[in-house]
């Protein structure tokens, strides 16, 4: 059997432990899919695979146990699904690119969740359109609020939807539900002074809990959709770590441009002698300030946006001597 392994894996098929079998990967940007595609996915699994699908952590489907020689048939079949997901930019008879920049996953967002500050699938879709397809290995996820159910903090780019709460003192009855809740559950950004609530903008993380707790509508949402962007979180075999905040109160255009510029940054600095140098390690190698300068080039952040002066990532190194007994 002869296949071009690189083309195959780039185009949504996996190398598996069974030499003549592959596994189809289906992206679902934003993790929300119309059920009309279920019969299609089912028929591929039944007709070409083993009648099962795996739900991936990045919210795609993997259809296992497919013969390599069926790839072209399957590519033709899944074309409508790929097109309707808006992933047809690079579609060809070999399938569509699924490696490199990974599926942009999203929590359920405000289509369902009361805590979500935005429609995360919409945000994911928009980002997908701005960056996909690309060979560089970027992991991006969108979460509706700082509860971070999608684990944005484990991504190269984690987008946390936030809102800047607006306080109307004329509707406030000083029940302190907002400030009590913020102190117990969030960052304690709200305090009571002379029966009014004062919000410490530096402490506020824009989760919107105060708005949800308010019984009179004294707290409402800001007009603008804003985001916190956390960057360079990762797992892997060297230095797993959580992402750190790079932008606060940034708008969609700003975060989109920063992600797009990061592709250029990677292209400029990636060590091509390595198999696949991951962005986080490039940033580590080049330093945060170089990264910051390059990704902000040409970006005019919205006036509310705040940018991290410096970032020190934590995590741990597997090769450190950790004491165990």
């Amino acid at each position, binding site marked *: 059997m002869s296949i071009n392994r690189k083309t195959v894996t780039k185009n949504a098929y996996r190398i598996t432990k069974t030499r003549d079998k592959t596994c189809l990967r289906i992206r679902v940007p934003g993790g929300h899919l119309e059920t009309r595609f279920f019969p299609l996915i089912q028929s591929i699994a039944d007709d070409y695979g083993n009648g099962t699908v795996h739900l991936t952590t990045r919210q795609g489907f993997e259809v296992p146990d497919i013969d390599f020689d069926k790839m072209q048939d399957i590519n033709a079949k899944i074309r409508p699904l790929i097109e309707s997901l808006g992933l047809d930019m690079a579609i060809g008879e070999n399938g569509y690119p699924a490696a490199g920049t990974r599926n942009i996953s999203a929590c359920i967002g405000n289509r369902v969740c009361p805590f979500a500050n935005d429609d995360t699938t919409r945000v994911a879709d928009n980002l997908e359109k701005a960056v996909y397809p690309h060979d560089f290995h970027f992991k991006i996820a969108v979460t509706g609020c700082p509860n971070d159910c999608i684990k944005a903090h484990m991504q190269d780019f984690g987008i946390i939807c936030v809102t800047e709460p607006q306080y109307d003192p004329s509707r406030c009855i000083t029940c302190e539900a907002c400030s009590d809740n913020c102190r117990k559950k969030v960052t304690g950004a709200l305090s009571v002074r002379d*029966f009014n609530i004062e919000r410490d903008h530096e402490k506020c993380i824009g989760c919107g809990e105060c708005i949800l707790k308010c019984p009179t509508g004294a707290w409402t949402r800001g007009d603008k959709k804003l985001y916190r962007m956390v960057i360079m979180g990762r797992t892997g075999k060297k230095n797993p770590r959580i992402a750190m905040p790079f932008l606060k109160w940034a708008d969609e255009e700003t975060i989109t441009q920063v992600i797009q510029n990061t592709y250029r940054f990677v292209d400029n600095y990636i060590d091509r002698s390595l198999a696949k140098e991951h962005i986080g390690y490039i940033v580590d190698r080049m330093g945060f300030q170089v990264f910051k300068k390059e990704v902000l080039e040409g970006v005019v952040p919205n006036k509310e946006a705040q940018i991290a002066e410096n970032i020190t990532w934590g995590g741990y190194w597997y090769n450190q001597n950790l004491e165990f007994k």
Partner: protein
Amino acid sequence: MGFRLAENEKDRYLSELLQSYHVFAPVAKAGKGAFSDTDVVGYGEIESFGDIVLDRKSHFSPKEVFYPVRETLFQFLKDEVLETTIDEKPLVVLVRPCDLNGVRRLDTIFLKNGQEVDTYYERRRKKVKFLMVECTEGFDTCFCVSMGSNVATDYDGALRFEEGSLLLDIKDPALATEILRDRPEADFQVEYIRENKVKVDAPPLEAVTKDLFDHDLWTEYTSRCIACGRCNTSCITCSCFTMQDVQVNDEKNLGERRRVWASCHIDGYSDMAGGHNFRKKHGEKMRFKTMHKVNDYHRRFGEHMCVGCGRCDDVCPEYISFSKCINKLNQIAKEVAQ
């Protein structure tokens, strides 16, 4: 007196009203719902009848238009008391019959309970005229018919929005503006909803005994209610308030006394200086409210306070149904009586 305005005349009538009145009605406040990308229906000033939202119940009642959430009573400049003034322009408020009946309850508390008249309520209330919007369908949580508040006749004017026209029944001549003059009278009898999906039987007053106060019914609410106060702040008849004094300038010589809505469900309502609190458990708070709405007020004033608008059911984050609570209470009253 009945009138009919054609579709293209409606807003002329409104614009004539607007010359003399602020006109408030339920409107959708875009993006102002608690959840993201949602609006909230609340009272706001309108410039066109097209602004009005009638296919959803307003989240907050119209009471805030003339009984503000927060109202400055006076300011103090050292020992001098400066009384506040209000906008002199009168108001027209569009309400449903249940809410109009609710306003009568507020009037009773503020104007008739005790010897004193609440002058702050009175000065705003005197400026309000009510245009009642015919309501024959209601919503899933309404129980106005059970509370006898589906019908209200003490309106200044009544409206029916029909396909292509607006019918008016004007009682207060001040609301008969230019466009209505010399217009032939139209036959318009306001119709009322006669049956709700939800039916409620409040226990007869004589059946509300100490046994009901001590009943286990309330312990269920101790575990369910989170004492957020939404039932109170959305209620058309909740009238309670608390005084607040603040210094409004840095020199500390200009002070302000205001009153703000109070909620019997929110902690602190019955706290006394020194710390004693009469109703700590949330079930006790639920009992206090329930009794006020369907028993105590009736004993004092001859009709139930609750008008069955059902907003408390709509807004409760714990899905506690007040109508269900009343029915449970009645059931228990029956059992206790046997």
